[in-house]
C-alpha cells in the first residue's frame, strides 16, 4: 500500500468516526430522526452534539498538528504542547483572565481568554526555548527538563491565582483546568475553526521545509531553507494553535504526542502527508475521547483531559521504553 493510499484511508476512517460520534450519547440518536422536521432529537443533534463534536475535532486537530510541529522543531518525539509547558503557560494566562475578570470585570468579549492564553503560551515557549538554547544546541534532556520546570512553575502559579480568586472564579478555573468541551459557545467555535484551519494551511505550505528541518538545521540551510525564519513561523503557528485550543477547552494533554506518533508509524516522515494525517487523526481521536468522556460515567461527564491523560500516560511510557531499546527516540 502506498503512503498516499494509507493517508486516504486514514482520512476517510477519521471522518467516519468523527461524524458518527454525535449520534451516540446519554440517548442515542437515529440518523432517520434528523430527516424529520422539528424532531427533538434533531434539535439535540444540531444544537448540542454536532457543535461539540466539531469543537473536539478542531481542538484535536490543532493540538496534534502543534505536537507534530514541536517534534519537528526540536527533533524530539516527546516534544508536545504539554511537555514543553505551553499548555500550562496558556492555562496560567487564562486563569489570570478569569481571576481578573472576577475583580475588575474585564470586558473583552470572546477574545479575552484567547488573548491571555496566547500570551501565556508564548511566554512559556519563550522561556523553554531560551533555556534550551542557552545551554547550546537543542539537547533533548535540557529541553524536557526546562519544560518540566516551566510546567511545575506555571502550574504552581495557576494554583496561586486560584487561591487568590473567590470561590466562584476558583471553581471556574478548576473546571476549566481539567479540560472540558462542555458549555462551549458557538461563537468561539468559529474562532477556533479559523485558527486551526488557517494554521493547518500555513503548515502544509511549509511541509517541505519542515522535512528539511527534521534532517538538521545546517543541512536545511544548505538546501536553501531560511531556517531562523522558518523556526519562528512554525513556532508561532503552533503556539497560537495551542493557545486557541487551550483557551477554549482547557489543557488537554497527550493528543499532541499520540496522534503524530501514530501517524509517523503509519506514514513515515514526509510532512506533506503528516500534516493532513495529524489533522484528521488528531481530530477524530479527540472526538472519540469526548464521546468516551460523555459515556463512561453517564449521565455524569468525565473531563476530557482525564480521558486523554489516562490513555496518554501509558503511551508516553511506551515510547520511552521503545526508544530505550535502540537508544534512538525517533
Amino acid at each position, binding site marked *: 500500500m502506498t503512503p498516499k493510499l494509507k493517508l486516504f484511508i486514514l482520512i476517510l476512517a477519521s471522518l467516519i468516526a468523527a461524524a458518527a460520534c454525535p449520534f451516540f450519547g446519554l440517548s442515542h440518536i437515529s440518523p432517520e430522526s434528523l430527516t424529520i422536521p422539528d424532531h427533538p432529537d434533531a434539535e439535540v443533534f444540531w444544537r448540542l452534539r454536532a457543535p461539540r463534536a466539531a469543537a473536539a475535532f478542531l481542538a484535536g486537530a490543532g493540538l496534534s498538528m502543534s505536537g507534530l510541529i514541536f517534534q519537528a522543531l526540536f527533533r524530539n518525539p516527546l516534544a508536545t504542547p504539554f511537555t514543553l509547558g505551553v499548555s500550562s503557560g496558556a492555562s496560567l494566562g487564562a486563569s489570570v483572565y478569569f481571576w481578573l475578570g472576577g475583580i475588575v470585570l474585564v470586558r473583552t468579549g470572546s477574545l479575552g481568554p484567547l488573548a491571555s492564553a496566547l500570551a501565556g503560551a508564548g511566554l512559556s515557549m519563550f522561556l523553554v526555548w531560551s533555556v534550551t538554547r542557552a545551554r547550546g544546541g537543542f539537547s533533548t534532556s535540557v529541553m524536557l527538563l526546562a519544560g518540566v520546570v516551566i510546567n511545575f512553575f506555571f502550574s504552581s502559579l495557576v494554583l496561586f491565582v486560584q487561591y487568590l480568586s473567590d470561590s466562584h472564579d476558583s471553581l471556574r478555573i478548576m473546571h476549566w483546568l481539567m479540560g472540558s468541551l462542555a458549555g462551549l459557545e458557538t461563537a468561539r467555535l468559529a474562532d477556533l475553526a479559523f485558527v486551526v484551519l488557517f494554521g493547518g494551511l500555513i503548515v502544509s505550505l*511549509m511541509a*517541505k521545509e519542515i*522535512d528539511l528541518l527534521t*534532517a538538521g538545521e*545546517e*543541512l536545511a540551510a544548505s*538546501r*536553501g531553507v531560511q*531556517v531562523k525564519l522558518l523556526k519562528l513561523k512554525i513556532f508561532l503557528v503552533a503556539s497560537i494553535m495551542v493557545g486557541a485550543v487551550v483557551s477554549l477547552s482547557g489543557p488537554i494533554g497527550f493528543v499532541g504526542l499520540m496522534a503524530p506518533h501514530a501517524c509517523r508509524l503509519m506514514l513515515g516522515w514526509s510532512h506533506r502527508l503528516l500534516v493532513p494525517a495529524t489533522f484528521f487523526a488528531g481530530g477524530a481521536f479527540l472526538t472519540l475521547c469526548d464521546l468516551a468522556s460523555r459515556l463512561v460515567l453517564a449521565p455524569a461527564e468525565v473531563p476530557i483531559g482525564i480521558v486523554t491523560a489516562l490513555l496518554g500516560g501509558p503511551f508516553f511510557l511506551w515510547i520511552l521504553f521503545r526508544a530505550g531499546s535502540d537508544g534512538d527516540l*525517533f
Partner: protein
Amino acid sequence: MTAASSKTVLSVQGLSYSIGAAQILVDVDFSAEEGGFVSVVGPNGAGKSTLLRCLMRLPERGRTRGRVEAAGRPLEQYSQKELARLISYVPQAGGWIPPFTVGEFVLLSRFPYATAVSSLAESDRRAAERALELTGLTALAKRPLKNLSGGERQKAFLAAALAQEAQVMLLDEPASFLDPRHAAELAGLLRALNREEGLTMIMVTHDLNHPLRAGGHALVLAEGRRRYFGPVEGLLEGSVLEEAFRHNFVRLDHPNGLGRVILPE
C-alpha cells in the same frame, strides 16, 4: 590552462569570522576555479569547518567580515535558495541521522528548485536517480539512513548534495569516520566527480595525501589564518605543513610509482 577552465567561481578576500572576542578566521584569501579542486588542510581548531560554513552562510551567531563572491556576485546578495542552487554542502559525518530513507533524503535536496505548492517534477526525479547512480546507492534507495553502514551513509549525504545540481560542492571531512577501504573508495568517487562531472570541490580533509592525489590547489590554515594557498605540489616543499601542524613530516616516493606521499614523522 585555458581561459575557460580558469574562470573563478568562488573568490574569498579578507574573510574574518569571530564569536565575541574569539577570532576563528582571520583575513583568509583564496579562490576556486570552475572545475577546480581545493583541499583545505590544517590542524584541529584551525577554522577549516568554519570556513566552509561561512561560505554556505550557515553560522547564526558571530560576526563575518570580508568579501566572498560566488559566480561574480557578492554572497550576501544571494537568497538562500539561489545559493543552494550554486553551492551544495556535505556536512561532517557522525551527527544526527535524519529519519528518512535514502531516496527520500536525496529528493529533499531538490528544495532549491521547488515552490511551496509545486510537487516533484520529472527533473527532480531524474536528478535524484542520477545522484544515486553516481554514488552506487540505487539499490539502497528504500533503506532508512539509520540502517546504513557509516560508509553508505556518507555516500547518501554525498548523493543528496549531488542531487542539488550545484556547481560547487563543499565537503567537511567526508572520510573522517570511514575505514581505509571506504575512505579510499569515497576519495576515488570524489575525484571522478571532479574530473568527469566538472564539479568544483572545496574539501576539508585530514588526509594530507588526498590533495596530492586530487590535484588542484591546497589551502593550509592554522589558527584561523592562511598559511599557504597554491598548487598542491607546494605541500611537498618548504615547511608549510611543519609550521601549520608544528610537527615534522617526511616526503617519500611511493614505491608503486603513485607519486610522492607525505607521512607524519
